[in-house]
């Protein structure tokens, strides 16, 4: 089989898998995205588009954090620090050096990426050390901003002159649509990583680090990739959202921001790609409801917000820690079992003497070494067979060929 045919086969298989997986959740996600994109144009009463856009930028960062928390299993408490780095880099370039918005935001993203790669040395550590290092990083960035008003603009913050975004007036609506598009793109990228080899390797590392590394998965590099990708996307979200707010205020980047992002991920469900975005929406809705309640109780709203986020998290953890999205999808599936069209008619149940597994003329060579040549096998129902041979005689290769884990060079009919 030529490399070209091989690629075509892989592509067809991937397309088939995508079609099979494109079930109701994907349709739901697409519909939700379309509805969300239309919200600013509906001029709904009481809906502030700038607050929506701000929430959507949080969703971008949370979706990226889903990669670090979910497949990589790293409890990162420092995502807000990367948002702050992206925000203040781009804000300084715009306010002090007069840069246009897009290159400034890219520079902010790059700064966050560099910070992610540098601080990413901690991913080699045990998870509790990852948690404490990222937590200290969040504090370090915040204390730095507070201690150096020359960088952060002090209690006033940095005032940002208005700039155009992608050739458009940077209205809240434009920001909202950009943030929505970025959330969707980030989610697609995270989904691709989850389903591909890197995601599998990350999961293997999470569940059995010792075993995975002994099988040749490179712990440091895989995790560093996830961690620094999260940092870069958080920096991008931070750089854009600070332009939306028109002022870079260090107070917005305290360690609570990092905690809130982690809450969003766990609340929505770290095991799903879209869970973190759902978590951000839930937090936002609760924030909307909590505002009037806090005023009625005469409590300072910020404190109330914090308490609510903390309480929510405790509840989610107490109820198994699965998150909102997996729970909702579980309910959906239970109530309306999906009618899956079978890809091919189900094979007739084989009788007692019919073969259930057969292979003929398998051949596999690695360079000049012929590992398996003309291997044939037929197994009947209820039959027990042993495959024996000395070390290196090709037993494992034969089984991998049968399982399809490795393409055969040649096979009989």
């Amino acid at each position, binding site marked *: 089989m030529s490399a070209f045919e091989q690629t075509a086969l892989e592509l067809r298989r991937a397309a088939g898998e995508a079609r099979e997986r494109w079930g109701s959740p994907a349709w739901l996600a697409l519909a939700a995205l379309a509805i969300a994109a239309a919200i600013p144009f509906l001029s709904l009463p009481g809906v502030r588009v700038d607050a929506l856009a701000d929430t959507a930028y949080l969703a971008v960062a949370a979706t990226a954090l889903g990669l670090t*928390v979910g497949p990589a*299993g790293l*409890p990162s*408490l420092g995502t807000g620090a990367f948002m702050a780095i992206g925000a203040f880099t781009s804000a300084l370039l715009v306010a002090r050096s007069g840069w246009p918005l897009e290159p400034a935001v890219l520079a902010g993203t790059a700064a966050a990426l560099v910070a992610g790669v540098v*601080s990413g*040395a*901690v991913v*080699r*550590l*045990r*998870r*509790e*050390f990852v*948690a*404490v*290092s990222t*937590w*200290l*990083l969040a*504090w*370090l960035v915040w*204390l*730095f901003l507070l*201690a*150096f008003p020359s960088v952060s603009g002090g209690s006033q913050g940095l005032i940002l002159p208005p700039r155009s975004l992608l050739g458009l007036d940077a209205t809240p609506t434009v920001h909202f649509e950009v943030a929505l598009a970025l959330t969707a793109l980030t989610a697609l990228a995270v989904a691709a990583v989850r389903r591909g080899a890197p995601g599998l390797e990350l999961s293997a590392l999470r569940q059995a*680090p*010792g075993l995975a*590394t*002994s099988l040749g998965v490179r*712990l440091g590099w895989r995790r560093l990739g996830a961690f620094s990708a999260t940092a870069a996307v958080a920096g991008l979200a931070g750089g854009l959202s600070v332009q939306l707010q028109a002022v870079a205020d260090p107070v917005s980047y305290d360690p*609570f921001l990092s*905690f809130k992002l*982690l*809450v969003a991920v*766990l609340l929505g469900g*770290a095991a799903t790609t879209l869970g973190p975005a759902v978590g951000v929406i839930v937090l936002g809705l609760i924030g909307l409801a909590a505002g009037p309640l806090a005023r009625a109780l005469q*409590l*300072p709203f*910020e*404190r*109330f917000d*914090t*308490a609510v*986020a*903390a*309480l929510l*998290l*405790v509840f989610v*953890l107490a109820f198994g*820690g699965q998150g909102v999205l997996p729970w909702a999808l579980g309910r959906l599936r239970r109530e309306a079992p999906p009618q899956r069209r079978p890809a091919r008619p189900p094979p007739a149940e084989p009788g007692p003497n019919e073969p259930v597994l057969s292979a003929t003329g398998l051949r596999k060579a690695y360079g000049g070494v012929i590992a398996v040549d003309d291997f044939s096998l037929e197994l009947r129902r209820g039959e027990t067979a042993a495959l024996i041979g000395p070390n290196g005689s090709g037993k494992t290769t034969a089984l991998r060929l049968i399982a399809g884990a490795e393409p055969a060079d040649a096979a009989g009919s």
Partner: protein
Amino acid sequence: MTITLQVIVSGLAAGGVYGLFAAGYSLIYRLTGIIHFAFGDLVGLGIFATLLVLAGTTPVSQSGAHEPRFLLAIVVGLAVCVLAGAGTYVGLVQPYLARGSTIGWVAGTVAVAFGIRAVIGATFQRSSYVFPDPLPFHRVGTAGYIHLGGAQVQARAFFVAGLAIALALGSAWFLERTRYGRALRAVADDREGARVVGVPVELLVTLAFALVGAIAMVAAVAAAPGEAVNANTGTLLGLKGLVAALAVRFGPPLWAFAAGLVLGVVESAIANVHFGGWQLGPSYREVLPLAFVLLLISLRPSPEALEERE
């Protein structure tokens, strides 16, 4: 020279408090394998419970306090600290430890930290409070300051540093010499082994969780009248303790205490010492040690801190 003594004594006073926090973090880590993110805030809760009994939520006008009332206040504060500490362990740490879920206890303890800060902030709504002083330090020296070879040192600093060192040595003695201390060390060495020979592991760990908070709280309350306190007080003390504990990679509690002392002196030196015409200044006080310890743990991690590798 004159400034050096002042730097060292006030550094040791701050460092003694950091050190007790650091020792608490490291003892908890060695007993359970968790890093207790709510530790500083639990102590902060105790401080504010003390303040609530002493003076209510109104700003304190007098700087002194009656002794009986103060005793009652600190007993209530310690009780709150102990109960909240034990509750955190039983409710939000132990279940996730048993399940082996790191993200569970990390998120749980951080949630407790923010929850406590929110409660304190909502109850005590002013930006800062003065903690009344049970001990008449203002009568020592000139208005509470002692002149030593040209340096002015707060009389309280000697007391706080001495108290912290005494508490640390006392705890070390407890761990080394008493039956309960031995049992705790057994749990730290080998949890299952300790359980097998009949050590009531869960009970002891819960107690230790509560008591390290109480010890840190005593030192923090002794230091509290020196500065304004607010909802961030406990959090920041906890943060400093965490930095010191991480510097020794959660090693033996006495090392962590020593690291805390060093951190206090370093902070004080960064803020005050001039090298010729060049001075770092107070802005660098908090960020430099934090950045240094982060670099240390990421570039030179101890083998135990690394995830299992080939």
